[in-house]
């Protein structure tokens, strides 16, 4: 197997005070291979955005404390200075933020905003950059780019703005694109357009993608691998076929059972009992324990370690490890 492009080791993010820390990301470790599309799923507040933002030191410290290692191209990104990071942000790693509608500057034309990203990382002439901007607009499927290039963001629909945001993130042909819920705010038919376009871009550029979403359908269609997060922990990490065919963690199992599809006719939906614990309330043991149908005594005391179930499948559950179904 090739060397991973990105390797995260023991990432922890906490708020609160030193004595009373509120951990929102706990011992998160995973890696992304070159060209791989990996999905990160989990409920609201499970730490998906914090994990992604940590990669580029985008979590404000203070108030947060971030520890661990994030290796990219042999360097630990968490140790880099701001100026060293500038050469990576936007160039090696593109980032699409969760609130795409507000991440565009309303008083700058979309052409200038894409151009800014190119200017920062290349020494192309103004003419060459304009050619490149048009090329990017075409790449993201913007109709009639020659006239749209000089338009302000508020004249665009949500789907069109999201295309611009993706064009900016792709401006320097990054090796890794981190996309935090890139289609969540869009309508289904527009989401289908944008995902279709992103799949095309992947084929052309061969970038690796870390796609954060709460939609298992999007993951199934877009990703090769998926990481399941819950209350700041990774509970399961597997290739998608293996995950959907035989989920190992009781949380993933419940999630897949309760997910609604267009075909199934269940009389009554399977439901996972209870609700997600507020951050910081579960300090010991498995975070899913209060809702888990197969919990054991041990689960209250000790966080289960990651265990392998085949070459591309790991999960952290005591019951699964002991063969309880």
């Amino acid at each position, binding site marked *: 197997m090739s060397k991973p492009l990105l390797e995260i080791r023991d990432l922890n993010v906490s708020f609160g005070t030193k004595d009373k820390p509120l951990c929102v990301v706990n011992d998160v470790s995973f890696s992304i291979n070159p060209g791989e599309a990996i999905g990160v799923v989990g409920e609201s507040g499970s730490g998906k955005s914090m994990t992604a933002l940590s990669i580029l030191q985008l979590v404000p410290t203070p108030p947060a404390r971030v520890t661990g290692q994030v290796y990219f191209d042999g360097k630990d990104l968490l140790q880099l200075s701001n100026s060293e990071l500038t050469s990576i942000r936007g160039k090696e790693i593109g980032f699409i933020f969760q609130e795409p509608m507000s991440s565009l500057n309303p008083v700058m034309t979309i052409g200038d905003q894409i151009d800014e990203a190119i200017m920062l990382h290349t020494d192309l002439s103004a003419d060459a950059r304009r050619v490149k901007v048009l090329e990017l607009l075409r790449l993201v499927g913007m109709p009639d780019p020659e006239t749209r290039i000089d338009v302000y963001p508020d004249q665009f629909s949500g789907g069109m703005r999201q295309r611009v945001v993706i064009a900016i993130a792709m401006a320097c042909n990054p090796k890794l694109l981190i996309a935090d819920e890139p289609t969540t705010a869009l309508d*289904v038919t527009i989401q289908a357009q944008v995902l279709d376009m992103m799949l095309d871009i992947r084929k052309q550029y061969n970038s690796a993608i870390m796609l954060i979403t709460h939609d298992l359908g*999007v993951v199934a*269609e877009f990703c090769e691998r998926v990481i399941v997060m819950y209350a700041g922990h990774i509970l399961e990490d597997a290739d998608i076929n293996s995950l*959907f065919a035989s989920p190992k963690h009781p949380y993933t199992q*419940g*999630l897949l059972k309760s997910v609604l599809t*267009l075909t199934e006719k269940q009389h009554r939906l399977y439901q996972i009992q209870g609700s*997600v614990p507020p951050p910081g309330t579960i300090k010991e043991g498995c975070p899913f324990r209060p809702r888990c149908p197969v919990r054991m005594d041990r689960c209250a005391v000790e966080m289960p370690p990651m265990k392998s179930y085949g070459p591309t499948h790991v999960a952290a559950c005591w019951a699964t490890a002991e063969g309880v179904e």
Partner: protein
Amino acid sequence: MSVLIEAKNLGKTFVDNSIRLGPKRAEVRAVDNVSFQIMKGETLAVVGESGCGKSTLGRLLLRLIEATEGHVSMDGKDLTNLSRQEMRQMRKNMQMVFQDPFGSLSPRRTVAQIISEPMDSFGMIRDKSHRRERVAELLELVGLPAIYMDRKPRQFSGGQRQRIGIARAISVHPSFIVADEPVSALDVSIQAQIINLMQDLQESEGFSILFISHDLAVVRHVADRVAVMYLGRIVEIGPKDQIYAAPHHPYTEALLSAAPHPDPTKEIERIVLQGDVPSPTDIPSGCAFRMRCPIAKDICSSDNPKSVEIMPGHQVACHFAAPHPITNAQRPT
């Protein structure tokens, strides 16, 4: 089964003061000539993309806003002509559940105050202890401990808030509930809980629901019949099983095929519609869908297709309405 709600040629045009077209104010045609019925105890789902008029339709049915044209009746009584006093009495029978029931409420009010507000306004509460009794009953009915009644909204998770919103709506024993995206803001594992709760309550209380949603998988589960809206019009309406198995309008077909499917082993042949939804201030002539429609012909830009009954209870507004059976390639079983 008897008819509870009937909408006849219902329309709503908003005047949008923020947009000006020259000297004229922009007119938003939010709901356009919509007619349908809802039976007693039935769930009719309304699906469609953002801005197509779903919420406006729901509010028109409850007469929370006045229709520009058309009529709504409940139990045969025309609501459009009722006096303020008569309408107030009708209101008791019609309630609404919102996407976030606390979004519009003061954060200083307690759960008990929030839940008992409709009962108070209809004089259904005798005294303080009666109020606490009723609130406790209702909380229990929606699966929350009664001790929550003195807490403030911000201490609750999304799923708990939705349970409180539902308790408030059913408190006056309505016969009709408009549920506007009641599970859209919730996590998957919580959505299932709320859907089950609403179905249980519907079974015991017998109310009808207009269920507004953009999520076709949720609708598939909760609805008896489905109405598909596009730019203010109902383009297709019919029994759920017919709509999902063989949609007759090209928009319904595209909508169904666009939904991502949580099964990686199936390759899906997706219809990707070109272009954006046109602005409701500037609805195209003829069929509103024609600019994005893969099968549009000349007649589609000149004539607005009439709604035609293609099977009992199944109506489609398309010049080329035809079954588009969802093939196995598109929709794995």
